[in-house]
């Protein structure tokens, strides 16, 4: 990753700004915002190159000065999987829907690590970039977005291992694998929705930073990573979907291994929850955004 340079930028990023050249000078009005504000998505699109650069910065800086570098992306889920296999799989004999327990837990750890990283980083993104916020204008939504996208690299690296494990255990993917990108995006959108709330709250209340580790830990236990959601009685399962990571993880197992059942109602409950959290988060973030520079 260290040899990632600017030449890797896809040409689509290099679109020139039409407003910069035309004879028509852009006009902007600066005034206090009132009531419901727009999400500023066109502004976000204008600044897509900055989103790319901040993501790239986060990726590039992440493993600087580490001895093992990007290997950490594999080591973390791998060791967690080994511990889970030993204690939950072997000793506690937690049922794993007929899937070999190491594979069972590793497929869940993939989206979980992505989610935990994205949630932590995005929640801290505004506070961590305080200097930028107080000195330059750019759409503030870029900050949590960039920190979430940076997590994808780790995910891709860790993902290579699951392919090896599937070959080892002789698990063949089914057509369900085509839905995998959806679950990856859904993981990130879930992290974004919660991250938007937490990052904006973090600006005003630094308590967020201290509770974050607890939230992530708590959430891990509440999600079917070490166990299967089939442990939850069938009639309660839709309620279990209120934890969107339950839907994501079961969906992930189904898409990748094709053995467990497709998550039905539970997934739709999760989707509904995420939509509500995301839309609310976007508006809350935009509302709080105007005081970021004054308070952070």
């Amino acid at each position: 990753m260290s040899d990632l340079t600017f030449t890797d930028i896809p040409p689509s990023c290099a679109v020139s700004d039409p407003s910069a050249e035309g004879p028509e000078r852009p006009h902007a009005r600066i005034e206090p915002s009132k009531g419901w504000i727009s999400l500023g998505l066109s502004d976000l699109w204008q600044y897509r190159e900055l989103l790319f650069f901040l993501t790239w910065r986060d990726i590039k800086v992440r493993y600087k000065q580490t001895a093992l570098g990007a290997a950490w992306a594999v080591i973390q889920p791998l060791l967690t999987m080994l511990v889970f296999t030993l204690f939950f799989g072997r000793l506690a004999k937690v049922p794993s829907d007929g899937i070999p327990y190491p594979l069972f837990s590793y497929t869940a750890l993939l989206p979980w690590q992505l989610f935990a990283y994205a949630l932590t980083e995005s929640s801290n993104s505004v506070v961590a970039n305080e200097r930028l916020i107080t000195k330059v204008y750019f759409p503030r939504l870029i900050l949590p977005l960039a920190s979430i996208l940076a997590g994808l690299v780790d995910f891709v690296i860790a993902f290579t291992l699951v392919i090896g494990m599937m070959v080892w255990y002789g698990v063949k993917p089914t057509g369900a694998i085509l839905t995998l990108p959806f679950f990856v995006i859904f993981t990130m959108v879930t992290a974004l929705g919660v991250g938007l709330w937490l990052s904006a709250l973090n600006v005003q209340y630094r308590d967020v930073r201290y509770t974050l580790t607890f939230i992530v830990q708590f959430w891990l236990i509440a999600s079917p990573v070490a166990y299967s959601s089939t442990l939850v009685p069938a009639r309660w399962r839709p309620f279990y979907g209120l934890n969107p990571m339950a839907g994501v993880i079961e969906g992930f197992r189904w898409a990748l291994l094709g053995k467990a059942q497709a998550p039905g109602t539970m997934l739709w409950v999760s989707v509904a929850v995420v939509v509500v959290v995301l839309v609310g988060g976007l508006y809350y973030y935009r509302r709080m955004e105007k005081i970021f520079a004054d308070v952070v």
Partner: protein
Amino acid sequence: MTDVAIRCRGLAKKYRIGERESYKALRDIITDAFASPFRRLRSALRHSSSSTPNEKPNIWALKDVSFEIKRGEVVGIIGRNGAGKSTLLKILSRITEPTHGHADIWGRVGSLLEVGTGFHPELTGRDNIFLNGAIMGMRKTEIARKFDEIVAFAEVEKFIDTPVKRYSSGMHVRLAFAVAAHLEPEILLVDEVLAVGDASFQKKCLNKMQSVSEHGRTVLFVSHNMSSVTRLCERTILLDAGSVTGDGPSHEVVSVYLKSGVGTSAQREWDDVQKAPGNDVVRLRAVRIITESGEVTETVDIRHPIGIEMEFDVLKPGFVLVPNFHFFNEEGLYLFVASDHDPQWRRRPRPECRFISTAWIPGNFLSEGTLVLGAAISTMDPVRVHFYERDAVAFHVVDSLDGDSARGDYAGPFPGVVRPLLKWTTQYSGEGATGARFGVEDSSR
């Protein structure tokens, strides 16, 4: 409408006191929530209908600021600390929202509120140029096009692939300014960036800014450096306590600003001891530029001595106080510091009374031009600065063309920051002289 670049109408910005300094902890909100019902109850019982005790006071950093800037104008913004200069730039660069009023901006805005924003120490110079450029709103293609130019301007060619954390502070600043200087917005907002770097680089930056304005771009330049404001900007806006108190040709506004004590820019007095610079130990009452005969003067003949006078009240006895003056030329170059050497008060605690200390600059020492100086009083052991008043007074040194100053009979530009009249001696080997020591060409041979 097309020739207007910036138009502000009634811009105002309110800050709650303390809002900038600390974030809230949830704990405070909770304790407030529990405490306030009781407080409200108590105040109701006391019938004190006035302000509630937990209502925080507000500060208006800007109040009703209106002005219009035409395309291609270079406008300076000056004012004392806390006058609202930075808040104004923050609003115009969309970092923070105004509380009331609005501003219209026509054209792409680039803001330089701090050089090197977003520099990451772990990344190389090359990476940081791209990152910093993108943060300031440059396109990747644009940065790539100007890359070599930026590197050359910053003079860091050899270290371009070294992480920025290994750069010297000078290199760091040069690289950061180089990126900023190559930003090509139609409107450039600049805040004090020239306060860093060495003298030659500062000059390079000033020249670059001048060439920017020659390309018809609008520049808004906030500075404490009166001389660069007068040099770079035709027009200057003076802010005082959040309001526009002066707007016009730079030299006029700058002299209004420097005179904003009493009298000329060569004299400033503080009538109210409470508002005078200083603390509970000592307060500054006046600074004056005087001639040998003791008259306040704004213009000094290069050949004559100049007296810099500082009048101050010692409010608490027992401190060793060292008055000192800080001299800057019109390019903002720090010329020298003059620190009190009067043997009578050296290492001797001062009693509670009024003092006047005067530093004498000999004639035929300073170069011609405008000098801006700051006045301070410090205690050396332990080091403590009781006050430092920047831009306290200013004066002009005028060279003579009579032939008896350092320039002699040469009337052209005479460079240098000092212009001492030195003693010259000559030795020669004339006709018949033996043992010519310097082997001077003898025309008679």
